[in-house]
């Protein structure tokens, strides 16, 4: 029996009167990769942000490693140390060097030993082929490099679960591959548990153990990765796949 990392039950989210998410239910096991697909505005980003406590929800329950999440700021703050997240806009801290960006949270939030984290950070930078940029500032890096650093920054926290919110959406096409390669490696080599929002269908097809297809804030179908791309269960998903470039 695989260990369940995250489970969502009957989750509803509202912005004012407008309901953004309708009765969301799913779960993800250790080592699994779930991708959230769907047209823009379907609620994918809202959902993934909710899973990191960046958006509040009105009804429903989130379980993390079998424990019910009490949705208060303190609890989320503690949980976020185990749930890493990378955003579309990378958002490295512009006033800190690459190394300081990586060191900040592990040392200040987790109170770990700086030298130990630095060693680990250098190893991670090696993996993403950016070791020589350890002392650079974000302004000296390309978008793709910044995004790789943002991934390293999240990994340095030793997360149990990684959330990727359209991490390649604002990158030039030639930068996209490098970032996706790292995410793929994380799955293949480290068996990292991941939830990914993406528009890169080829990538999703390769990496997804499970696809959640969303439209208008609802999960229309939940299908094993390979099957979704070959035989989607719903017409809407088929239409969606047809409209995307592979």
């Amino acid at each position, binding site marked *: 029996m695989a260990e369940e990392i995250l489970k969502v039950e009957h989750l509803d989210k509202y912005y004012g009167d407008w309901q953004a998410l309708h009765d969301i239910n799913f779960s993800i096991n250790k080592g699994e990769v779930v991708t959230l697909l769907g047209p823009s505005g379907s609620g994918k980003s809202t959902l993934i942000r909710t899973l990191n406590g960046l958006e509040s929800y009105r009804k429903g329950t989130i379980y993390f490693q079998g424990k019910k999440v009490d949705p208060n700021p303190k609890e989320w703050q503690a949980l976020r140390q185990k749930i890493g997240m990378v955003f579309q806009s990378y*958002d*490295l*801290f512009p*006033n800190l060097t690459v190394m300081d960006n990586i060191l*900040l*949270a592990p040392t200040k*939030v987790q109170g770990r030993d700086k030298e130990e984290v630095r060693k680990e950070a250098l190893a991670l930078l090696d993996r993403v082929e950016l070791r020589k940029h350890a002392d650079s500032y974000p302004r000296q890096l390309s978008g793709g490099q910044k995004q790789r650093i943002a991934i390293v920054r999240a990994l340095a*926290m030793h997360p149990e679960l990684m959330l990727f919110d359209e991490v390649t959406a604002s990158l030039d096409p030639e930068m996209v591959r490098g970032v996706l390669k790292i995410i793929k490696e994380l799955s293949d080599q480290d068996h990292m548990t991941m939830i990914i929002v993406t528009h890169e269908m080829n990538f999703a097809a390769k990496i997804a153990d499970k696809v959640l297809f969303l439209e208008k804030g609802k999960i229309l179908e939940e299908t094993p990765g390979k099957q979704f791309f070959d035989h989607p269960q719903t017409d809407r998903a088929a239409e969606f796949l047809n409209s995307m470039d592979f």
Partner: protein
Amino acid sequence: MNWTVIQQSLPEFAQGFKLTLWLSFVGIIGAIIVGIISSLSQYFRVPVVGKIVGAYVEIARNTPLLIQLFFLYYAFPVMGIKMAAQTCGIIGLIFLGGAYMAEGFTGGFNGVSKSQLDSGRALGMSDFQLARYIVFPQGFALSMPALAANIIFLIKETSIFSVIAIPELTNTALDLIGMYYQSNEYLFVLVVAYAIILIPLIVFLTWLERRVRYGTFGD
């Protein structure tokens, strides 16, 4: 323009010049301190204090310095609080300037992008850590233009001190005009004196603004 008149007035203007610089310096330092404390109390929404500070900022920003000074200098003694003119001037400048500085810093803090805060939160930072590592360093850099504008503004506002007979630059010129009627000459010196203070300062602050901006955001 009579150069002898100008020359003879220079020692007196030098006194006024020094006083303007000194009062500006003390007032601006005080205003920055009050401004930082005020904007912090608003940023952290300190109960009661935050509200009082909010009211203070609105009152100070929406009334003229001159009437604030008159109140301190003429009306306070009726309530038993008597202060020297220069003390009133400095308190007035800090009262006014503190509110402007508070607005500037608050604007900077609020200007820090939401996605930066999200990424800090996603790393598990507490509200205090977000403030310490993200909001303040970036917010101070963002409030540099306001800070620079306020410094220039406050130095110019010291000219209003002349209404309560503080012998700073403008008061010096008015005194001299009253005594010798050489208004062209004295006003000329007065304008030049402000230019000597403000032009280098404007150049310096513009340079500083760019440096801080580049150092923080890289653009």
